[in-house]
């Protein structure tokens, strides 16, 4: 058995496995993002609904999800819904968790649209749905794009939590390989490197977007 601290054969051995896991990580991030972006928007709009019957429960839901840990949410749903695949649970819970954070971001964006825009739309007899679609959201979303981008990066970095419900994402693969071969240093260093390589350019992109929007 090789006893040196860093073993390149391990690297060679584990890379395909990690990349396989990374594909799952990416897919979970993409699915989670789509859920978070759409549901977050819906939640934010619901908090502007004309009736308290909608506003109050939505607000309670958002507060509840935001104030409980992602890990606990993952476990709970995993235990409650054993018939669903871990991936589906993982990506959905991740998406819903981040939807509540994104809803706050959207809300700030929506609140940032001047009241006069709503009033001008009313003065033109525009229905509420059209006002949202054509006037409010284009202005609100534009202003919060960088913040949404940052949350997607956070979500990406939270995907390892899915390992605890046996989703075969990258860290799960690393963990398994490590315990099988008693080699942790190489696998986790590599996993960290892959995360860095993927998320650093993305953060640069978000920063450029911020500059362009004049934040």
């Amino acid at each position, binding site marked *: 058995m090789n006893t040196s601290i860093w073993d390149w054969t391990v690297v060679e051995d584990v890379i395909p496995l990690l990349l396989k896991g990374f594909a799952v990580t990416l897919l979970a991030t993409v699915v989670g993002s789509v859920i978070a972006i759409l549901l977050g928007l819906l939640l934010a709009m619901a908090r502007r609904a004309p009736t308290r019957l909608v506003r109050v429960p939505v607000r309670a839901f958002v507060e509840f999800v935001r104030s409980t840990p992602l890990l606990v949410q993952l476990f709970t749903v995993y235990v409650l819904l054993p018939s669903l695949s871990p991936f589906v649970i993982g990506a959905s819970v991740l998406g819903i968790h981040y939807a509540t954070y994104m809803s706050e971001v959207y809300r700030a964006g929506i609140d940032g649209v001047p009241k006069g825009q709503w*009033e*001008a739309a009313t*003065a033109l*007899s525009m229905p509420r749905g059209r006002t949202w679609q*054509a*006037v409010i959201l*284009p*202005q609100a979303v534009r202003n919060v794009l960088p913040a949404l981008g940052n949350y997607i990066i956070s979500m990406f970095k939270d995907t390892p939590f899915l390992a605890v419900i046996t989703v075969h994402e990258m860290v799960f693969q690393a963990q398994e390989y490590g315990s099988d071969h008693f080699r942790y240093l190489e696998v986790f260093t590599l996993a960290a490197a892959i995360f860095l390589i993927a998320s650093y350019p993305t953060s640069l992109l978000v920063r450029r977007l911020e500059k362009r929007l004049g934040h």
Partner: protein
Amino acid sequence: MVLFEQVVKRFGSNIVLDHLDFSVAQGERVTLIGPSGSGKTTILRLLMTLEKVNGGVVYVEGQPLSHMKRGSQLVPANERYLRTVRKKIGMVFQQFNLFPNMKVLDNVTEAPIHVLGLSKEEAVDRAKQLLDLVGLGDRINQHPTSLSGGQQQRVAIARALAMQPDVLLLDEVTSALDPELVADVLNVLRDIAQSTTITMLIVTHEMQFARDVSNRILMFDKGRIVEEGQPDKIFSNPEHERTQTFLRAVLEER
């Protein structure tokens, strides 16, 4: 055309309009004057259904606006009803409130297409005509933010007119403008006043303009009409002491 019947409007404990009665005839142009806080904006906002009355009824063309008929009763209007009746009314705001995410042309075609159901071609034709009328026919593809305040306000006028409202509300439409831009906007409004029969309710501090375009002046104080009459009469020979002091103060400002 426009009828306020015993209208009460409160903000908290502040009674802004206290059983106000007045009417404006079809095609009439009426200017509301009066000191700050006398309720002029509130009246226009009630007509635009941006505020709700606390008492009384507002009518437009004999149809209730603040209320709707249920059997023989009048009940407060719901959103669905408001959507149908507020089409009769258009408003231009002090702060323009153009949609910055749309080009000038789209600002003017948006509601005709999506509210009135005009085809794109019809809406564009109508918008181009109106933008020509306000002197901005060559700016249709620009974004509002690239226009001066005066130009933005003229787009806002075109946008309101594109809905072909029966009543046009103008709330201090030149107050946010640099002095040198005021004249263009007022000239456009003079043109419109002369060439159309649209009913107008105007709030302005431009007394010469009010004199030129209005058929009647209403002088408000604390939510009540203290004096009304033809412009010549009100401006040259005001009877009420409040009107005299108000007009003196406005003239001194300039």
